[in-house]
C-alpha cells in the first residue's frame, strides 16, 4: 500500500486515499449486487446468469473493505493534488462533444473542429500551425485509414 506521505501529511486528519478508494469500490460492489437481483442466481448444480456477478460483487466488496481498513496510513485525501483535473475534465467534455458530432457531421469535420479546440483554445497555439495541423491531420488520417486501409468512417451530410 502507498506510504509515501510526509510526516506533516501523516499528522493531518480526515479520510485517507486508500480508505476513500476502498469505500468507493465497496459502493460499486453494493450497486452491482443490487442490480444483480433481477437475474436468477440458480443452484450450485445449475448456476444461473446472476451467479458469477454475485460472487464477484461479494469479492470486490471484500477487497474494497480490506483496502479501506489497511489504508489508514496512506496519504490524506485532502493532500492529493488535482492540478491537471480541470484540464482533464475539459478534454473529456470536448471528446464527448466530438463523439456526439462524429456520425452527424462526419469524421473529417469532427476531427478538424476537435483539433482546433485543443490546439487553439486549450493549448493557445498560433492560428497558422493550428490550422495546418487540424486540416492536415483530419484529411491525412481519413485518407490513410478510410481510403487506403478501407476502414469505413462516417461522412458528413454534405458528402465529405
Amino acid at each position: 500500500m502507498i506510504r509515501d506521505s510526509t510526516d506533516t501529511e501523516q499528522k493531518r486528519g480526515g479520510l485517507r486515499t486508500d480508505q476513500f478508494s476502498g469505500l468507493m469500490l465497496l459502493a460499486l460492489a453494493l450497486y452491482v449486487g443490487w442490480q444483480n437481483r433481477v437475474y436468477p442466481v440458480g443452484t450450485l448444480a445449475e448456476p444461473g446468469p446472476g451467479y458469477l456477478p454475485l460472487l464477484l460483487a461479494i469479492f470486490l466488496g471484500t477487497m474494497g473493505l480490506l483496502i479501506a481498513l489497511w489504508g489508514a496510513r496512506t496519504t490524506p485525501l485532502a493532500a492529493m493534488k488535482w492540478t491537471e483535473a480541470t484540464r482533464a475534465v475539459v478534454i473529456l467534455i470536448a471528446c464527448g462533444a466530438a463523439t456526439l458530432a462524429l456520425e452527424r457531421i462526419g469524421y473529417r469535420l469532427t476531427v478538424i473542429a476537435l483539433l482546433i479546440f485543443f490546439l487553439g483554445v486549450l493549448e493557445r497555439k498560433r492560428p497558422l500551425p493550428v490550422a495546418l495541423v487540424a486540416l492536415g491531420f483530419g484529411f491525412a488520417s481519413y485518407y490513410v485509414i478510410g481510403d487506403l486501409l478501407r476502414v469505413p468512417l462516417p461522412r458528413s451530410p454534405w458528402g465529405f
Partner: protein
Amino acid sequence: MAETFQNLLLGFSVALQPSILVYAFVGCLIGTLVGMMPGLGPLAGISLLLPATFGLNPIIAIVLLAGVYYGAMYGGSTTSILMSIPGEAASVMTCVDGYAMTQKGRAGPALAIAAIGSFIAGTLGVVGLMLLAPTLAEFALRFGPPEYTALLLMGLFILAYMSGGSMLKTLAMAAFGLMLGMIGIDVMSGYTRFSFGVVELSDGVGIVPVAVGLFGVGEILLAAGGAEAPKVQQPKLRDLIPSREEFRLSAGPIARGSLLGFLIGIIPGSAHIISSFVSYGIERRISRHPERFGQGAIEGVAGPESANNAAATGAFVPMMALGIPTSPVTAVMIAAIMVHGILPGPMLIQQQPELFWGFVASMYVGNVVLLILNLPMVGLFVNLLRIPYGYLYPCILCFCILGTYSVSNSVVDVWILLAMGGIGYVLRKFRYDLAPVALGLVLAPMIELSLRQSLAMSAGDYGIFLQRPIATTMLALGVVLLLLALKPLVFKGKDWRESVGLEKQ
C-alpha cells in the same frame, strides 16, 4: 527436434514472403515510434491498428501486430535513455542508469546495449516459444472445463502475487475487470445482463475501448498540460559502439534478463513491466559494486531491457498454446486472430501450422529488422521527441477515437472509451494497477463458461476441482501463491516487491 526444424522451415517459407517482410518491417517501425511516444504504449498502438488488420490475411495481421508489440518494447527504451521519460511502463527501470549514462555522454553505448540486449533476448524468447508452445498445446488437449477453470483462477492468483503494486488493489481491479466482462448476453441462459437498455451493450464490452481508454486516454488526461518537449541528444552512428568493458559487463545481465524475462512472460499480469523491475533488482543485488547502480551502470540497462523483451515473447506461449491471454496486449491480439475466424488454443498449432510457424519465423525476422532499424536510425527517430506535447496529445486522442470507432463502427464504443479514460485517470491517481482490469475483462467469459460447465458436470459438487489431478495441482499452486502474497499483510514481513523497488502489499 527434427520435426520442430521442419516446421520452422515451413515458417520461414511463409515469413520470408515479400508481403510479410514488408508488414513485419512496418509493424516494427510503427511499434518503435509508438513506444517512443509518452501516452501511447504497445497496447494503445496495437488497439489502434487493430481495425486496419481486418482486411488483411490472419498471418499478416498477427505479424504486423507482433511487430508493433516488440517494436514498442524497444522504442520505449530510447526515450528512457535519452530523456528519462519512459515511453512505456516497462522502460521505467531503464531510465535510472540509461539516463545517467546519457548525462555522462555515454548515450550511444546505452542505446546500443539496449538494442543488442533486446535482440538477443527477443531471439532467445522465440526459441523458447518455438520449443515450449507445441509441447504445452499437446498437454492442454487433456484439459476439460475443470482444468480450464483451475488454470484461469491460478492465473489470477499468480497475477495477484506477481503484481508490481498492492496485492489487494490488484485483486480488486481483476474483479472489476471480470465484472465488466459480465456485461452482455449470458451465453448459457440468453439473459442480457447489465446492459441498461443499450442495445450495443448486449454484445458485451470490447477489449479495445477499455484498453485504449484505460491506457491511452487515461495517460493523456494525467499528462496533459505538462511541460514542453525537453532538449534531446541526437547520438551519431559512430558514438553507438560500446567499449569492450561495457560488452563484458553486459553479457551476464543480458543472459539472465533473457531467461528471467521469458519465464515471467509466461505468467499472467504486466509481465514485461515486472520482469524489468525484477531484473534490475537482481543485477543490483549480485553486482560486486552495487553503488554504481543509479550512477550509469550499463548492467542496469542491459538486464531490464533484455528482460522486458524476452517477457514480451514469453507472453505468446500461453496465448498460442492455450488461447489464454496473459496480458492486455495478447488479449487484443487474440481478438485480432478471432476476427478471422481462427480460435487460438491447443488445436491452433495442429490446424494452422502456417500461421503458428509463420508467426514464430516472422519474430526472428522482426528481431533482425528491429536491430537494423533502431541502431542506425536512432538519430532520426529522436526527432519525434522534439514535437511539443501540446501538439502531440490532441493527435493521439483523435487516433484513440478513430481506432475505437472503427473496430465496430459504434459510437457506444467511443463513449466506453471516454468513460474508461476517466476511470483510468482516477484509478491511476489512486495508484491502482490497470492491467488486471483489461485481463479480467477478457478472462471473464472463459472463467464463467468453464466454471458453470464444471459445476454442471459434477451436479454442483465443487469437489470436481479436487478429483482431477491437473486441476488440483494448478489450484493448489494458485492458493499457495495467494497465501504467500497475503503473508506480508498479516505478519508485516518483507515481501519480494520491496527488494526490487516496487511498492508493498
